[in-house]
């Protein structure tokens, strides 16, 4: 009987500082067999464990075609994540996973991709972007629209610069509290919609970030003719088990740890923004 609670030790290979309190931890599973078996889809998450403290759900941000090293971008905000922030390369974490439903990247083949993200919310979609660019010719145009509060919140700067260089690809950035160094758009991410042309029949939208961004952004895209069934969102709730048993991650009838975190928009539309859901 497979025990879904068993935690696999992993070593921190590298620590990449992304912002003031945000760090990417590059992890490698210690057990060679576990390493060989570990395969994930972009948008899935792991339960990351720290000895003596506990587990926390973190999306895998690395390229699914390179599952030997697993990147997790973590903001030091809670009890566990703050304790993780004190670790150094060579220290041990644990991994359980991968869990949940990822982005529908097979279904998206042949279509134009519009990616809309806000803040640290861009993490779950990074793996999807890498996946698409590895198979650039299998997808149509790619538009990446990313909003941050302040320029300090802009993670993965080099990645955005690298993505921009792919053919038929647009990367648009915006900040609603910019400083003098900011050379991109000023405002919220939904304003970027006006700067891109979107073929409503050929496009698929991948969205992650604050729920308010989704609730404001989706109606604008729908008015431009994109059906709700062509829009996907990655959602967050408190998670403890990762397998739909602990009950914390419910949103209406869904357990976001197994039915999500990536959900087709029409399935969650009536739950988003409902108080207490």
């Amino acid at each position, binding site marked *: 009987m497979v025990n879904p*609670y*068993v935690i696999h030790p992993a070593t921190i290979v590298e620590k990449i500082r992304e912002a003031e309190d945000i760090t990417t931890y590059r992890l490698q599973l210690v057990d060679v067999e576990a390493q060989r078996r570990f395969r994930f889809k972009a948008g899935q998450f792991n339960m990351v464990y720290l000895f003596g*403290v506990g587990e926390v759900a973190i999306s895998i941000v690395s390229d699914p075609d390179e599952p030997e090293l697993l990147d997790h971008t973590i*903001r030091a*905000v809670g009890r566990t994540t703050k304790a993780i922030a004190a670790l150094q390369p060579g220290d041990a974490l644990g991994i359980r996973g991968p869990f949940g439903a990822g982005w529908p990247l097979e279904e998206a083949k042949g279509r134009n991709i519009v990616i809309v993200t806000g803040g640290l919310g861009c993490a779950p979609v990074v793996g999807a972007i890498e996946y698409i660019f590895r198979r650039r010719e299998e997808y149509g145009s790619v538009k990446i629209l990313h909003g941050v509060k302040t320029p300090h919140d802009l993670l993965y700067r080099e990645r955005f610069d690298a993505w921009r260089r792919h053919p038929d690809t647009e990367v648009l950035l915006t900040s609603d509290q910019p400083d003098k160094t900011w050379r991109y758009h000023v405002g919220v991410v939904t304003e970027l919609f006006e700067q891109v042309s979107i073929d409503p029949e050929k496009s698929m939208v991948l969205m992650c970030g604050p729920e308010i961004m989704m609730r404001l952004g989706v109606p604008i895209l729908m008015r431009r003719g994109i059906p709700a069934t062509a829009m996907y969102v990655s959602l967050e709730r408190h998670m403890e088990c990762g*397998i739909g048993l602990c009950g914390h991650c419910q949103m209406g009838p869904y357990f976001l740890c197994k039915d999500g975190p990536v959900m087709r928009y029409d399935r969650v539309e009536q739950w988003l923004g409902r108080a207490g859901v």
Partner: protein
Amino acid sequence: MPMVSQSCGVLPRVDLQRLLDALSAEGYRVVGPTVREGSVVWETISSVSELPIGWRDQQEPGRYRLEQTGSQELFGVVHGPQSLKPFVFAPREPLLQITRRQDGFTTSPTLPQPERVAVIGARACDLAGLVIQDRIFMNETYRDPYYATRREGLFVIAVNCTRALATCFCASMETGPRAQRGYDLAVTEVDEQLLVESGSEAGRDILSTILVPAASDELISAAASSIHACAQSQIRRLDHSRLPQALYEAHEHPRWDDVAGRCLACTNCTMVCPTCFCHTVEETPDLSHQHAAHARLWDSCFTQEHGYIHGKNIRPTIKDRYRMWLTHKLASWIDQFGTSGCVGCGRCITWCPVGIDVTEELSALLTPDVQPPLALQHKDGP
């Protein structure tokens, strides 16, 4: 009278000890209801005399009392606060023992010792709850090994209800008062006789070892009419015909504010519920930080941390939490598991310290334009 090993036999009440002895001989630890602190709790028993003989329970919203009738009735107490849940979904289940090593740590699962446990006195509602929890913890994707280990050793002797409490509404939930499935043996107490039916191979085997005579048609029909009368006598019912949709649509109903004025968010309803499955995982290191125990504990959607996500609480108020509980139990549960999360046992009504009645709340929530009574305020006091 022919001695049979068929599925329906009769055992004089005074001979129940033979069944307990047969179970012990088969290696079962026998557990039954015993009187403690004004109610009944599950305890290991070796003798029929440990059962709550002659006791009956009276239950109403927020109130539980036992009374002694002086009879020899074995199963006059319908139920206490515990369902079958603690036998399979343990309140505190150690998951892993984790030991620190130079290059990290090693984990070893702490599965419960396999044990054969025979529970006598479970009710139809308890079994309905067990069947629902089976579906949750032993689903197609994951078979929870801790739950499964406990479940495998469980032998259930159900008791069909012939007396309804004021808080019972299993008839309207179609889960009782007759045990439907999931039992090994089912007993109906009819005066001095116990009608015993088997519901599984293991049940048939036990029944055959104690060589009970076949039940007469009269006894079978007397039992059936007692159970039927019990269903008829239930004064509470829960109308689930318009669920889940009607409750989803009631999300902004003013009744939620009203019930939030009374609800304590104390978690009792979720703890006594036979189907509630929320749990939290707790890591407990020793002072040397060389060993840690990783365990899961019963949790509740009424706690502060249940809806917490990095720096904010999705359900900060009692209104949010009560609405989450009721909407999940009666509505979204249907979408998730194809069945209601409520089995009609009435425990959440009885064991609510302020006597909130789930049937009354639902009926108010599904009534549009109702003017709810004012929430409790100091001005409303004595």
